[in-house]
Every structure is written in C-alpha cells, then in structure tokens.
C-alpha cells in the first residue's frame, strides 16, 4: 500500500544521497577534530552512516547547499522541530520492530510485534501530516513532503490499515489465561477467576528472611520475552482463542508492506537535520551563534565573525565552561595567516576553526559564527604533529617533510593549507629554514593558508602574509585570553612563565622534592 508515486527528498533537488565531491580525507578530519564532530553528530543514530557521509562530503553544488539551508531554517521553528523529532523517534521504533521480526521464531510473537509496529506507524504519519498542514513551511523539501503526506494520509488504503490495527489490538488486550507448570509439563487454559496465590506463598516463606540479602526477584522482560516455553504457550493460546488469533493473522497477511517508501526516506533524511541541530543546540543555549555562510568562488576576500572551534566548543559547553570566539578577515592580496604568540594561547584552535568552517559550509549546515563569507575550496591539506611511532624507523622529521612535500605537490590555487607547529623536533634554524620553504611555495600558489609557528620571522614574509597572534592577560604572562588577534608577531615567549605556573622551575621542584 504505497502512496502516490512521487519522489520527495529533503537533501536536494536531485534524487538525494551525498554529494559527488571527494570526502574529506581521514587524516585531515582528525587534524581538524572534525572526526569528533562527526562522531558526536552521528552518534548511534540508525542513520549514522548517512549522516557521516553527508558531513564528510561537500554537497554536489552550491544550489544543494541553499536547498539544505532552507530546510534548516524551517526547522529553526521549535514546534515544527519537535514534531519532526517525534516522528523520527516513532518511525525508528517501527523500523526496530520490523527488523526484529526475522529473529522471532514464533509466528504469534511476530504477528503481535508486527501489529504493534503498524499502530505506531499510523500514529506517526497522522501526527506529522497534521503538523505540516498547520505550520507554515517554506523550504522546498518540506513543502513537497507536506503535500505528499496530505494525499497519503487521506487515502483509503491508509485509513483501512489504521482502523484494522486498532481493532486487533483491543481484542488481544482483553485476553487473560492460566498456565500450570508441573515438572516439565505445562497446561494452558482460560482464566476463570482463580484467587491470587502469590500473597500466600510470600507469607509462608517470610520467616526465612535474614535481613538484607541479594535480591533475586525475577525481572520479567517483554523483549526478548519469547522463549521456547512461551512460544508453545502462545501456540496453545491460539487454539484456545482461535477467533482473535485468526483475525490477527489475517491483518498481518493483508498489510505485509505497510511502510510507504517516501515516508521512510523522509525519516532517514530528517535524521541528518535533527542530528546536527541536536548537536548545536546546547552551544546556542550557551550564547554561541551559528550562521548560513555566503560561499564565494570569486576573489578570496573571506571573513568570519564570532566564530569558534566546534569540537572544542561542544566539549567546553558540556562542562559549563565559556567559549572564546575569534574573527578573521582577508582583503586584497592577503592569503596567508601566520599565527604566533604564547603557547596555550588558542593558536591551534584558531587553525582548526579555519579549516572546520570551510568544510562545514560546504555540507549545507549552519556554521559557527555570527556571519561568514568563505571561499569554495577544492581540497584541504593539514599538517599537525603526530605521536612518534616506533614502527616508523625513517624518523619523525623525515616523515613530516615527506608528508608536506606530498601535500604541496597536490595543492592547487583553490586549496586550503593548514599547518600547525611542525619541525618542533629539530633546531630553531632548521625550523626557520623549513618554514620559509613551505611559505614560499604556498605564496607561489596563491592559496589560502593558516600557518601556526613559534618562529616569529615567518610572520613578515610579504603582503600576502597576515600576522595574527595569541594573546595574554596584560600583566600576567601565564594567563591566556585564547583570543587570536591581528597584530605583529612580538617576539615574546612565555615558556618559563608556564613552567612556573605548573610548579616545575628549579626552585619550585627543589621544594616539592624535598624529603
């Protein structure tokens, strides 16, 4: 019993599924901590694979990005969002029920479970159709779904399904029966008002109670509640209550494929929106903003205001800690942001934020920030320091250099390069030499780049380079603001101040290690 033959997708004009762009590379995802974001958004939802795909792939084109923006915008309305959430929750249960059927050995159990699924399904469809009819929706995807559900919920086939399901349920709920267990033999009969014996039994054995003991009271579970014994009992009940069980079997036969394919697709696709909105809700409650960014293929004049690292913000917000936001803006010939300044000042976080924004913008999701204009990139390359691996005998530095070489070979003028404190396992002169070589190549390609370094000199390599720096609380070198602002690299370093903060200077350690 399917509805009118139409195609309805919430993910884009074209028949859906992830974009045709390349998924973001695993290492890049990990470097940007987008893997954490994607893991958290997808969670253990049934459609986690779809959600992962959608978050890993840029949408096929900018039109698809707008299409998804519209859906997100409609779902900003709380009542509609809540209705969609309830719908997907009910449908999830329906699908869980149906997928469990194959594991059920008893035909009567299967039929009971199937009936239950059908009842939930009818309820979910009706509720969603009602809400979409009442509420104003503007997104192309949701308007199409609304029109479809209106026709479908009003069809005679659907009405029959709903009415029959309700009748079967009320009949079965009226049955009470008796089981007698004697050794390995079980008798099943109708219940005829025999008195409650449990109370007497309990009273008889009460005297043996020895105070607090482990509780062995059996907890009956309804799922998976059907064992061989109860299956055989059900078999006999089907004979004792032949009319009720025959009617149930008939219902299951007639409505084998009750789930409408368009409804189930909508259910799948809604989870993408719900998952992302659920993920950012606590952040918005904490006062952070999200925006629908402008995407440009023209001049690389990009900016973002009040933006932040999504993964870090989620973590901090969960702990009730404040999140520091940052801005950036590139105009004219500016392409490269060199970030320097005190350690633990938010440099890495700033670099990640830059990469996250560009990728997320392409998935059609709202991105961290009050407003943003971003460049439509072809690839993102990252290089963050990784843990030393003894299986790698070629040496850490060589590995670093080989990976950077590979990235710089593959990069184009539309690429984005993000590098974080490479070369720290070698000398200052090496780090300066190698950093300079990297930036020369980056500037030559005219691509967008964020380069985090402790070598101040790299921030002064020409008009395409913008210097930004992490900052400290004035007068307290050990306290960071986590703000990264546009300013010249000032040559200050703060290592010993941090050592003092941790109590590991010579004088402090002498005191701490004294017997």
């Amino acid at each position, binding site marked *: 019993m399917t509805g009118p033959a139409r195609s309805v997708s919430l993910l884009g004009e074209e028949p859906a599924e992830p974009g045709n762009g390349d998924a973001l590379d695993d290492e890049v995802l990990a470097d940007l901590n987008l893997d954490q974001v994607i893991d958290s958004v997808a969670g253990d939802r049934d459609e986690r694979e779809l959600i992962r795909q959608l978050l890993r792939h840029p949408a096929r084109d900018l039109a698809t990005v707008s299409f998804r923006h519209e859906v997100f915008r409609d779902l900003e309305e709380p009542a509609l969002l809540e209705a969609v959430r309830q719908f997907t929750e009910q449908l999830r249960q329906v699908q869980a029920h149906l997928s469990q059927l194959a594991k059920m050995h008893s035909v009567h159990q299967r039929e009971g479970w199937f009936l239950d699924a059908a009842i939930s399904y009818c309820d979910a469809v009706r509720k969603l159709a009602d809400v979409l009819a009442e509420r104003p929706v503007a997104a192309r995807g949701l308007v199409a779904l609304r029109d479809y559900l209106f026709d479908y919920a009003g069809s005679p086939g659907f009405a029959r399904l709903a009415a029959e399901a309700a009748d079967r349920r009320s009949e079965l709920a009226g049955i009470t029966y008796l089981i007698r267990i004697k050794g390995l033999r079980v008798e099943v009969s109708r219940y005829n008002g025999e008195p409650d014996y449990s109370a007497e039994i309990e009273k008889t054995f009460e005297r043996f109670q020895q105070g607090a003991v482990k509780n062995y009271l059996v907890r009956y579970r309804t799922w998976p509640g059907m064992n061989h014994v109860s299956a055989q009992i059900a078999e006999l009940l089907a004979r004792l209550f032949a009319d009720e069980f025959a009617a149930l079997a008939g219902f299951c036969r007639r409505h084998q494929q009750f789930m409408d394919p368009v409804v189930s697709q909508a259910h799948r696709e809604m989870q993408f929106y719900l998952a992302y909105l659920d993920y950012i809700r606590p952040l918005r409650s904490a006062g952070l903003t999200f925006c629908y960014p402008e995407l440009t293929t023209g001049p690389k004049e990009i900016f973002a205001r009040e933006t932040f690292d999504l993964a870090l913000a989620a973590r901090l917000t969960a702990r009730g800690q404040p999140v520091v936001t940052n801005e950036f803006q590139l105009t004219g010939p500016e392409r490269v942001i060199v970030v320097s300044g005190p350690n633990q000042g938010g440099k890495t976080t700033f670099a990640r934020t830059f990469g996250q924004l560009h990728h997320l913008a392409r998935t059609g999701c709202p991105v961290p920030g009050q407003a943003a204009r971003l460049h439509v990139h072809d690839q993102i390359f990252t290089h963050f320091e990784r843990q030393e691996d003894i299986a790698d005998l070629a040496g850490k530095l060589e590995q670093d250099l080989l990976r950077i070489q590979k990235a710089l070979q593959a990069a184009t003028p539309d690429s984005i390069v993000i590098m974080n404190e490479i070369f720290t396992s070698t000398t200052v002169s090496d780090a300066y030499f190698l950093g300079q070589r990297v930036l020369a190549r980056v500037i030559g390609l005219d691509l967008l780049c964020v380069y985090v370094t402790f*070598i101040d000199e790299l921030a002064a390599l020409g008009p395409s380079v913008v210097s930004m720096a992490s900052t400290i609380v004035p007068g307290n070198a050990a306290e960071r603001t986590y703000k990264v602002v546009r300013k010249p690299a000032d040559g200050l370093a703060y290592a010993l101040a941090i050592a003092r903060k941790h109590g590991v200077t010579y004088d402090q350690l002498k005191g701490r290690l004294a017997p």
Partner: protein
Amino acid sequence: MKAHLLHADQDFDFAADLPPSSADLIADLELDTVLTTMAAGDKFLYQTCAKVLLASVTDPAAIRYRQSVLADCIAVPDVVRLMYDIAVAALTEKRRIWGLLSSQYPASILSSAINQLEVLIVRLRDLRRLADDHVAKFRSEGLVTLLHTLQRDLDDDYFEVLSDHLRQLRFADGELISAQLDRDNSGINFVLRAGGPRRGWKERVRIEPRSVYSFAISPRDEASGQALQDLANRGLNLVANAAAQAADHVSSFFTMLQAELAFYVGCLNLHDQLTARGQPLTFPDPLSWTSPQFTCEDLRDTSLSLRTGQVVGNDVTADGKALVIITGANSGGKSTFLRSVGLAQLMMQCGMFVTAGALRASVCQQLFTHFIREEDAEMVSGRLDEELSRMSRIADQIGPHCLILFNESFAATNEREGSEIGRQVVRALLEADIRVFFVSHQFDFADGFRREIADLTLFLRAPREPDGTRTFKLVAAQPLPTSYGQDIYHRIGGWPGDQLAAS
C-alpha cells in the same frame, strides 16, 4: 592453601592500583607489544602480566625469588603450562556453568552451584596428581613449596561431605500462574493462582470444546527448563545463595593459582618468541640502590625485537652516572635505546629476563617516563603546557631512588627556552637522588651539563657516518651543535619548484 609464586610469603595483590606512572609507561615504552606477546591472544594473561610487570619489586632478593621460579618454568615448561591449564579449566568450566544458566533464576543458581562443585573437585584431583608426578623436577623454593602443599592439604573427605549436603537441595513442584498478552503475544502480568482448571466430563467426551491444552518440554532443553523454573520457583533464593558461595570459596584458590601462574606462562610465551627471533636473553643482576649502577652488553629494545628482525644492541657503561644524555642524529636510534633501558628496568624488577647479553643495574623505587606526545585530544592545553603539566604530575609522585626517562621533552618551544626549562628540571631531580636518562636534540641543553657536571654525566650520541647514513648503535661522545633537518630536506628533493632543493 596459597600459591605464593610471586612473593615467598604473601599473595600478589592483583586488586592493587597500578602505579600512577603506568599509563605513561605503557604508552611510552610500547609495553603493548611485549604484553601482547606474553598474552598470546589471551586477555586474562595480558591483564595479569601487565599488573605484575608494572608493579615493580624493589628488593633484589625478591627479584631473585621470581628469577628462580621462572628458571624452573623455562626448564620444565610443559608441566607449568599444564598446571596453568588445570586452573584455567577449573575456572572456565565453573564460569561456563554460570554462563549458560542465567543467575536471574534461583533454581538455576542452585543446580549450577552443585555442578560447579563437581567440576572443581575433578580439577583439584588433577592438581594433586600433577604434584605427585612432577615434584622432583623442580628446584625453586616457590614451586617446590606449592607442590608439597598440594600433596599434603587436599583431602577428599571435605568435598564428599559437601556434595552430600548439596545432593539434598534439589526439589521441584508445580505452580499455577495467570498471565496476559504482551505486545508481542508473550506473557505479561504473571500472578500466582490457587486451584486449577479441570476438564469437565462434557469436555472429556468432547461435547464441549476443549478448554485445557498441554505440552511437555524435553529434559535436555536447558533454556526452557530455566524458563519454567523461573516461572515456578521464586522461593529458592537463600539456599541457592549459600551453595553458590561454597563454590566460590573453592574457586578462589584456583583464581589465585591461575593469576600467579599466568605471569610465568606469559614469560614463557615471550621467551619462546624472543628465542625464535634469535634474541639474546639473560637474567639480569639486580643491585640495591646505593649508587647508580647501569652496565649492559648488547641491550635491545624488546618491543622492537618482537616487531622487526634487525635490532642493534647497545653496550653502555654508566655506573656512577646519575645523568645519561643521548644526543645525535634524527632516526639514529635514540628513542629505541631509551625504550630498551625502560623495558629492561621494568622486566628486571618483575623478575623477568631481559633482551641483552648482560645487564647489571641498581633497582629503582619506581620508573617514570616523560616522552613527547601528540597534542592532547582535549585541545585546551598547548603542547608545552601539556608537557609541563605532565611533569608536574610526575613531581607529585616521584622521589629518591626513582628513575626517569625523558624523550625530547620541553621541545615544544624554541631551543633556548626549552633548554632552560629542561636544565632546571633535571638539576632539581638529580639533587633529589633521582636518576635521569634524557634524549634531546637540543645542543644548548646537553652542552650545559657538559660544562657543569661532566663527571656525573654520561653522553651518548647517535652517530652519523661520514657518508650520511646512520648506524643505530650509540657511542659515548659529546653532543654536537648541529641537526640534520636540512639534509633530509635536500635528500627528499624539497618541495615542488624549490630551486634551493635541487642543489
């Protein structure tokens, strides 16, 4: 009855917390490779060996006690493995009985307890037979004492009395229960009822429709039997509990025996693998901590030996040196040497052999590592901050007679500042009678100690041959004021389009 294979006079405390430095040691020394080999796929072996390996013994005599047990094990591996298998079998069979019959059902607990005791008695008799057959083959105090105890203390009467009691505890009775249909047509709302349905005469002669149907379940159908008991019997809780506890007492002996033997079985597994790879193995000579002693011949990184065939051993004499600084070429084997020192120290102090031609070293109170790490997943800390905060945690735990290994620590800032922090930390540690091994590429750091306390410091260097290749064998040599980053850059050909690299 006690196993006492890890200590002469007490049980090993498997419930004790691991030393606070354990997580660092596991990560930094690649202990997982060693433990995985010891475990040979067995999770229990893995966990047990991890506990023993990390809980260093600091008394040289206690170390030698284990060395002699382990020497016995290596001499007669089959008997030791058999003894372990008996303990494993006893516990596995006991657990399997629990596993099949859910403890949600008191009637099942009762019959499980009886079955368990039967199984355990069989295995105790196996142990006794093993002791009778093989006791003459052992020399070590630990194993000889254990086998004598088994021969003397196992008394069949104890178990016969117990089984007599348990035999009386089985019973069954019929019960009548009402129920309704749940959403999946299984039973719900069970209520025990008095009385019962009887078929009237009209029904028996089939004038009325039948009102009672019945079936019987097979006696072999354990699951159904359990379901029936579950429905029928809610009153067996106390009896089942007491019987189950009796079984627990017997099995606790096997648990301790299994755990203490597990360490030696793990050592045998490791011994097999290292021998197969042709690695030199020796029992080290543990010395009490008076002055720092450390002399090795052909010392190898055990983890690396297990992973690759080609491992270079190092010969180092560092007696009387409180500080060992390792400098030199990237990829020159510095980290490998540092790990080999850490692993050897841990392996020595749990009573194990080491991968070396010879090792003589003073025992340390506790071993610590401070290695360069990936940026922490929490993201809040910068790298230097993270390193210093780790150093601060170590300072909370470390004390006199400890040993600490640093690998490229405090390098997350520029060389001048990194060196200064490193010098301050190391100076304070040395003055607190703590021994330090430090791998550093920072010339400034290393050179500072050469100028100040050359007599207490041993400098090792990962050399680079004149043709630019590296050997991995360290030599005693002063630090050099260069590194090799630019070499590598040129060797790999530089970035695309870089004229400089072509030269």
